[in-house]
């Protein structure tokens, strides 16, 4: 017994975490959003899991060894029972990561979070550095002031937050200002999301058209990434460790290790993937079966699409490229169709890092290891 420190930071359990989409509804109507439904959508609210159903799922997750839940939406704070669910989860011994736009953080909620801390920084997305930009992105008058007020309520109580913003046409000129403003407040380095997803329920083609127009061009993305000193060196190190050929496996990621439960009680192997063949209705089953029996039937799937096999399966830019079954689902309604936008961004990054030259396609490279070894010689 002698000589050992009695307590230490906890190791992660077998089921690392579960994402929970408490609602798809949101009081904002962001131009780029992949999921939101109107706050007053009574039909969506009626279909959502009840308080008792969420409590059952939280209890089952805890029994399965889950330590971390991430609550997202929509805007999770729109749920009338948020405080009840939060305290229930914390009293089960769960650590809660809350994704929010902060606009609904009241004095009362901030007090609650200060008294019973979530044990993880609140993840807050900022939609612009001025009222004009923010309200234009959220299409909600007063959203900037409401978000800043909510954030202030957290900061004044020293509740840790992690701040991030979304890079798109309306915000591209404000990213530097965001980083400068956010750095002193954010527990983690301010995070910028550069690539927009289409609607994850494939529910609105007109909104998809808008999202496509809002996306930054691949070379613009690379230029913005390079604003940060040391970016290229860091990415080259990352590539030497993590890029490589994917083959025909569709899920070389961590999908299924935890998973996600959507607002209506469907288990998904990851947060964005809602293909009908990859979801499991918990109202007719159990989380244990979803995780142990259903998830492997999804994550063991192999690609069959000839275009995927000819390109993505032979591409060595896995790790740089955002291609995955969820993105394929948003864009094409399948699990294994190459997504041109993400492919172009990955190729632009690869050229910038010295992995490819102009006109080369990654799946034609015969010896990726040599490319990786030479990478950075000229930079």
């Amino acid at each position, binding site marked *: 017994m002698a000589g050992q420190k009695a307590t230490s930071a906890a190791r992660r359990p077998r089921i690392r975490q579960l994402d929970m989409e408490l609602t798809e509804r949101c009081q904002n109507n962001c131009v780029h959003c992949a999921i939101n439904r109107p706050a007053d959508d009574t039909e969506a609210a009626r279909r959502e899991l009840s308080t008792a159903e969420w409590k059952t799922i939280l209890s089952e997750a805890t029994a399965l060894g889950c330590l971390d839940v991430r609550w997202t939406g929509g805007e999770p704070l729109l749920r009338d029972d948020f405080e009840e669910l939060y305290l229930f989860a914390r009293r089960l011994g769960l*650590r809660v990561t809350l994704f929010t736009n902060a606009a609904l953080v009241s004095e009362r909620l901030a007090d609650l979070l200060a008294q019973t801390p979530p*044990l993880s920084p609140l993840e807050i997305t900022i939609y612009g550095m001025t009222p004009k930009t923010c309200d234009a992105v959220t299409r909600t008058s007063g959203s900037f002031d409401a978000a800043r007020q909510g954030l202030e309520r957290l900061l004044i109580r020293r509740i840790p937050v992690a701040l991030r913003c979304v890079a798109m046409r309306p915000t591209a000129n404000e990213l530097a200002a965001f980083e400068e403003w956010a750095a002193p407040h954010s527990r983690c380095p301010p995070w910028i999301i550069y690539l927009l997803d289409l609607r994850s329920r494939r529910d609105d083609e007109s909104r998809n058209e808008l999202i496509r127009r809002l996306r930054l061009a691949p070379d613009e993305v690379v230029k913005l990434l390079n604003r940060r000193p040391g970016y290229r060196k860091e990415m080259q190190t990352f590539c030497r460790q993590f890029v490589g050929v994917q083959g025909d496996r569709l899920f070389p990621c961590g999908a299924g290790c935890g998973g996600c439960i959507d607002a209506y009680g469907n288990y998904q192997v990851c947060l964005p993937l809602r293909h009908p063949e990859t979801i499991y209705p918990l109202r007719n089953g159990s989380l244990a079966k979803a995780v142990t029996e259903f998830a492997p039937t999804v994550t063991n799937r192999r690609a069959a699409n000839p275009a995927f096999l000819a390109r993505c399966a032979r591409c060595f830019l896995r790790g740089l490229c955002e291609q995955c079954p969820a993105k394929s689902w948003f864009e094409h309604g399948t699990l294994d169709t190459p997504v041109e936008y993400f492919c172009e961004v990955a190729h632009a990054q690869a050229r910038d890092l010295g992995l490819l030259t102009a006109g080369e396609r990654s799946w034609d490279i015969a010896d990726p290891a040599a490319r990786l070894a030479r990478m950075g010689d000229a930079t």
Partner: protein
Amino acid sequence: MDKSVKLSAAYRPSEDVVVRDIEGELIIVPLVAGLADLEDALFTVNESGRAIWDRLDGQQTVEQIIGELAVEYDAPTEELRADVIGFLEEVLQRGLVIEVAQRQA
């Protein structure tokens, strides 16, 4: 508040923590602010610490726990005393346990 360990005192887990047993690993999850840091403030208790923690029922004194462990582990009492006091000091400082009552030695 006195945070020194008393051999004649009994201790129990604070009501401000949730104790999780995950695959045989004891994990202590704080419920309120002020226990260690706000972030990543989950603690695991190692095997020997667990032997002590499981006996913190608010009834047994520290001295009694040491005696029980000495029999169970067939270990020298003096060595165990140092280990038990070291463990209790750590969890007491962190606010993970509280003193219940001081008993007559």
